[in-house]
């Protein structure tokens, strides 16, 4: 399993209610059910992936986070998870606000556009960066709102949410992000993982 998923599983307490937004093929949900005995629900936009989740016995609804989070009451989940999709939304601000409304706690993972390889790519080639984790061209990428770890931390102050835990994933190593190391983490981490609350 992806290191990212292991970190998320560790962040979630046992026997809680979890909504995985953009649950993909249900790998994370399965692991949460198995390891943390959670009541896991998922939303997924792809019909094929919803069908894969159903074949794994997972409770998933086909839907779009930008339209379909509305139906869930306030605080109806202990955790809402959004893995690496914030950058794909038309309006990330509305999505974050919805996640915070529906979940008591929210876990968001952000692919770091501030990574040195991305920066170097743009600096030297002068074209939009293409890396292992960002394999698409500028004209066909679903990632229309890329941000850096630093951007996300700044965003917490702009739209006013609390970051309870921020972790950096660098070459499969996990470390804490704090004010004093933010510059380095923003340069070397591939992924930021944030536990946030309203």
């Amino acid at each position, binding site marked *: 399993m992806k290191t990212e998923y292991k970190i998320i599983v560790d962040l979630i307490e046992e026997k809680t*209610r979890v909504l995985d937004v953009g649950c993909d093929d249900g790998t994370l949900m399965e692991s949460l059910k198995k390891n943390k005995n959670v009541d896991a*629900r998922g939303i997924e936009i792809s*019909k094929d992936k*919803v*069908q894969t*989740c*159903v*074949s*794994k*016995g*997972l*409770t*998933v*609804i*086909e*839907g779009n986070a930008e339209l379909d989070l509305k*139906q*869930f*009451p306030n605080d*109806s989940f202990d955790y809402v998870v959004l893995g690496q999709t914030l950058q794909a939304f038309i309006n990330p601000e509305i999505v974050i606000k919805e996640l915070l409304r529906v979940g008591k706690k929210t876990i968001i993972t952000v692919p770091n556009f501030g990574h040195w390889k991305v920066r170097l790519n743009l600096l030297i080639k002068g074209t939009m960066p293409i890396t292992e984790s960002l394999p698409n061209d500028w004209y066909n990428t679903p990632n229309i709102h890329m941000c850096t770890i630093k951007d996300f931390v700044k965003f917490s102050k702009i739209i006013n949410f609390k970051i309870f835990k921020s972790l950096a994933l660098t070459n499969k190593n996990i470390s804490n992000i704090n004010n004093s190391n933010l510059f380095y983490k923003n340069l070397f981490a591939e992924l930021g993982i944030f536990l946030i609350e309203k």
Partner: protein
Amino acid sequence: MNIKENIKTLVIKKPLKLDCGKTINNFPLAYETYGSLNKNKDNAILVFHALTGDQFVTGINPVTKKDGWWSYAVGPNKSIDTNKYFVICANVIGGCMGSFGPSHKNPDTNKIYGTDFPVITINDMVNAQVNLLDHFEIKKLFSVVGGSMGGMQVLQFISNFPDKASTVVPIACTASHSAQNIAFNELGRQAIASDHNWSDGKYLSNNTLPDKGLSVARMAAHITYLSKKGLQEKFGRKLQERDALKFGFDADFQIESYLRYQGSVFVDRFDANSYLYITRAMDYFDLVKQFDGNLSNAFKKTKAKFFVISFTSDWLYPTQENKDIVIALNAIGADVGFVEIKSDKGHDSFLLDVPDFLKTLKNFLDKSYIER
């Protein structure tokens, strides 16, 4: 039609108070079963049929000699696997395949009911069918499954009997019959009523049949079960056994011929008055109103696991109406999954060979059965 010997019937002695205010008792409920009930009696699935269906879900229908209406989905190793599950299906009351309906004789007058038969509702239908659970000594069904009007019965059933099913699968249906659907049903009813032979519903006593009216009703309804794209691909403007237009009103086009055929075979197996009664029951269905405008309250008492399925090209019971059920369930934190299956086959998709649908239904049931 000499159908009696092929039909299993349960006579329901317990009085049933209908929504219209009348009470019926000692009435027949015709049913069929497939597979076998296990020792714990926890592998039973109650399937509800749609408007023109009957209890003969799969295999050869002993009356029509054609494949059962859900042969694609129900049978050994199929989506509803009869090697694993005990499948029960009853003909709805108001129907014409052996259950208490308008073609039966009124014991008080010794005359055929016709339109003197009480108006029945979806609620009445499920309240009649729940008696089958007592008959088979089943405390809790593993699942209730149905498409279209069958889906409406699924929703009404779990609302009335919240602890009588572990899983609930409404397919291509709605919680509240729309104006458009009432309109189409009214078109069908008026087609029947305007057939001179209908004689205010007394045709059986007169030894006539409103074949033409019923056939037009079926033709109109059949169009609503398909999609524009499906029709265009299957028929387009293809001509029927001719090279050129005949400049007349025969069936020049294949689609005309197809609809006429659908109408003509339907009258052989369906009763016109039953068509009136059952479409009326669908039109009266409004689970939202039953719960004072809050559909969530219909499902508040149940712990069942729901799985809602809709189809992309179904414009009769469109995805949004199915999604409204999902939204109501999510609002109370119920266990609900939902998928919209891609298909060009319109509302009829649930009855046809649509592999993604059949696979998903099977996966949901089989996984839920293991985890129950």
